[in-house]
């Protein structure tokens, strides 16, 4: 009997020592609160891209500081979304932190798959790492619901720019494009003067990932796929004018396989010096100016362009980090989110040359940033204007975004391939998107 009691007592003591991953002992109050989750393993689901590099590059620092182990999985966007949705449907909570693309936020919020962050920010901010108050509301708005609740920390926010080879423009005395019309004129001149270089490259494949290019270009003409009431407006006159010019650029001044071109092949061409202009998100400037991966690093400049409507052509993109609603380590996950977006981490990103555009505006005032970005001052001084030009009104904020974007972009891609006229493409897009929204 005594033996049994002793064994039971020992077992009780052992079970009392095991940690759950959450804050172990509030009443004791650890000297270093960052160590409160020591021993926890966080499963982090990330997307390929420069936003992820800082995590993989500096995760040892976080692990040393907090004692939390990061188990990072990196996938392309469709696979990431796939894994997250499957995990949420099974309610297993296999992932604690997930990279969230702003265009999926309506879907994730509606389904309740992400943990609201406002209470964490109010009650558990890390004094040094927390940066939410330094991120512009325009960046945070992409990750809020209709009631204003925040569901992700914004780690990257970009707008649309025309990136161009300033050396070629100077060589041929071409004015820096300010409007969509200027881009077409410049393309015509470059086609004649530089026959071995494509005047223009952009995404043209039929995936939803290329929607931002054609729809963003069309916004400069006052066109949008869904209006403010959610009605489908693909076949308006403004949309026709915008898409006509875009398809002209892609058919006559871009590579012949533009209808199959995604961001990777587009970027590859530009980095190799085979293209003169690229319309896409400003995040690519960091890549094109990196001597490690670009052969034209010293020959780049960028500008915001407007259309006949006076509106700036868009390529809005925001990526965040959210906490899964099914995570069993939410407090530890919140600490990780704060570290990722901390001034300390983004300074390291700048120093390592990973990227130079951040939603946290404090970085732009630091001496280290100014020193490091001296060579690309042309870009960093334009960042405020680029951020100012972002207008989310053009983006179809619907949980059916993926299907809407694909239905629209498939038709544009076929027009670029020459399989149908622009009129046919927009008529088909109108029907297809209406079918999705039904």
């Amino acid at each position, binding site marked *: 009997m005594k033996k049994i009691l002793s064994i039971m007592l020992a077992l009780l003591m052992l079970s009392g020592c095991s940690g759950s991953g959450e804050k172990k002992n509030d009443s004791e109050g650890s000297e270093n609160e960052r160590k409160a989750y020591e021993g926890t393993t966080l499963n982090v689901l990330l997307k390929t891209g420069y936003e992820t590099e800082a995590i993989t590059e500096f995760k040892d620092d976080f692990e040393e500081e907090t004692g939390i182990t990061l188990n990072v999985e990196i996938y392309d966007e469709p696979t990431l979304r796939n894994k997250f949705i499957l995990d949420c449907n099974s309610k297993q909570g296999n992932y604690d932190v997930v990279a969230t693309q702003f265009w999926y936020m309506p879907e994730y919020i509606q389904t309740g798959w992400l943990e609201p962050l406002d209470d964490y920010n109010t009650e558990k901010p890390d004094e040094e790492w927390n940066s939410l108050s330094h991120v512009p509301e325009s960046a945070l708005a992409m990750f809020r619901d209709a009631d204003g609740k925040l569901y992700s920390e914004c780690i990257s926010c970009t707008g649309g720019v025309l990136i161009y080879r300033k050396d070629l423009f100077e060589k041929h005395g071409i004015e820096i494009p300010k409007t969509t019309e200027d881009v077409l004129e410049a393309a015509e001149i470059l086609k004649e003067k530089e026959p071995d270089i494509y005047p223009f490259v952009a995404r043209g*494949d039929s995936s939803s990932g290329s929607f931002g290019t054609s729809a963003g270009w069309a916004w400069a003409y006052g066109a949008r796929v869904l209006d403010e009431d959610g009605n489908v407006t693909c076949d308006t006159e403004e949309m026709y004018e915008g898409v006509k010019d875009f398809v002209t650029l892609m058919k006559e001044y871009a590579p012949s396989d533009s209808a*199959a071109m995604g961001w990777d*092949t587009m970027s590859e061409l530009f980095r190799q010096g085979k293209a003169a202009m690229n319309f896409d998100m400003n995040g690519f400037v960091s890549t094109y100016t990196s001597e490690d991966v670009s052969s034209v690093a010293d020959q780049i400049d960028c500008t915001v362009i407007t259309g006949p409507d006076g509106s700036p052509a868009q390529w809005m993109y925001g990526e965040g980090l959210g906490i899964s609603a099914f995570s069993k380590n939410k407090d530890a996950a919140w600490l990780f989110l704060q570290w990722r977006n901390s001034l300390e981490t983004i300074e390291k990103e700048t120093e390592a040359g990973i990227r130079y555009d951040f939603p946290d505006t404090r970085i732009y005032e630091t001496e280290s940033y100014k020193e490091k970005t001296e060579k690309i001052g042309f870009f960093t001084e334009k960042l405020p204007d680029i951020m100012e030009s972002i207008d989310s009104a053009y983006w179809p904020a619907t949980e059916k975004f*993926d299907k809407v974007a694909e239905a629209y972009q498939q*038709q544009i*891609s*076929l027009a670029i*391939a020459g399989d149908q006229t622009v009129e046919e493409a927009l008529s088909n897009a109108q029907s297809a998107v209406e079918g999705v929204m039904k």
Partner: protein
Amino acid sequence: MRDKMFMRFMTIPALLVFLLMGVYPTIQGLINSFTSYNMTETAEKKFIGVDNYIRMFTEMRFWQALGRTLIFVMLSVGLSYMIGLVIAVLLNKINAVRNVYRIIFLIPMIIAPTITALNFKFMYNYNMGIINFFLNLAGIPNVDFLGDPSIALFSTLAVDIWLGTPLAILILLAGIESQSEAYYEAAKIDGASEWQIFLEITFPILKKFSVIVIVLRTMDALKVYEVIQLMTAGGPGTSSETLNIYISKAGFSWFEMGYAAALGIFALYFIMFIARFIINKTGLFQSEVSRV
């Protein structure tokens, strides 16, 4: 009696695996096909009868995907069989370094389809691909293999043929080598030409092996997914979207599991129908006696 009981007992693990991995998912898929199951919606899935099937049969995209699948299968099976037959006949005639040639022709079988698809995607690249490089050397302008809607499907077809022909070679070569040399010697003595020998002796004897090749290649071609998904993802537009790609899109891009299940059930019965048709027409599983 005890032996029979023992044999039955030993089949239980295999039966369990078949039930769990084959029967249960099929039944679950069938049930889901009658529901509104969508993984991105909070509403509970509900029974909707045959709505998914009505949607499927009234959707032009489905019929287009099915049409492309049939074209893909017929061309892939036909061409890989014919190429495989020619190579098997030639390999049979080579005596010197025969095994070296065999290994070379069987290499596609040992490379994972995923790796093959990614490599061909690079080789097909319009600007930097090696195929266009050689075409340029021959004076032919660049071809947009994966970006031209009129040829994208056929570009992926070529890769599937490259992957599937070794199987045809293997089976047909085994068939040729199993034939008695006496037939050929007698034909040569009688003055038959090579072409006559092939038509009158080799080809008829290879009938059963040919049927096996056609059945296996048809099953493989109907299942093709990763080659097309990695190279074109069904694009440009939907020009290379086969039924499998469409099912994948419905299930894993749109997460409309009910509809994807309906598509999957259709695909299952479609494949079974084709397999049954081929087997019945060719008498594959009938003995020689019963066929007579």
